[in-house]
């Protein structure tokens, strides 16, 4: 699963994947001390996926000031759709 973070023209953030997410995303948690994001799914058996890479300083700054993220669910065989999920800041 290849996942990227982007910045929208209106200043918001977007998380996009080149395949469908395994489950609907309930929220995204951002661990400030590690600069890592975690996708938390609406599924009890698969709680979430911790993203592999630390954010750079600029990306971290955008994430730390954003209250939500637009998640775009992409699959080649169906229409693109997106939904906003809360971005929860964890740590100081």
């Amino acid at each position, binding site marked *: 699963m290849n996942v990227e973070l982007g910045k929208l023209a209106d200043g918001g953030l*977007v998380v996009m994947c*080149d395949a469908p997410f395994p489950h609907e995303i309930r929220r995204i948690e951002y661990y400030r001390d590690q600069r890592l994001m975690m996708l938390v799914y609406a599924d009890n058996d698969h709680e979430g996926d911790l993203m*592999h890479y630390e954010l750079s300083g600029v990306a971290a700054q955008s994430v730390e000031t954003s209250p939500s993220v637009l998640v775009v669910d992409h699959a080649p065989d169906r*229409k693109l759709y997106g939904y906003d999920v809360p971005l929860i800041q964890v740590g100081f």
Partner: protein
Amino acid sequence: MAIDQKTQDDQFAAKKAADDASFLQRRSQEDAKFQADKAQSEKVFTDRKAEEAGAPARQAQQDAANRGIVGGVLGAVGVVAGIGLMNKLEGVIPMATLSGAQNGNVIQGVAQQNGFNVASMAAGVSTGLQNTMNTAMNFLTPPKQNGP
């Protein structure tokens, strides 16, 4: 007479030593109390900052609960699709790889398949060189990886 003077000197020295010891003990106690009060004040300050920092997350949970999501479990809001989503995504700037391949092609690939445009580096330069440089560096410099 000389013996009396020596006795007086001895008594004076003994009294001075006792006073000094008493003074040092009192100062030591006051220092300890000051340090304890300072630690307590700092703890109150730290607790208050922690309380303030946690407030937005609690508010988000409360908002979610108010929207009818039982137990304040946060969930998706505001689904967008079609032209509304395309307009929102138009001009998106890739910022960072979160997981998987670090080629910076995920957003570009989705854009090509769905018909919206990704902001080019040239467009980024016009909005701010520093941001553009950092955005570029984010893909050029391999970020630290979590785990083996």
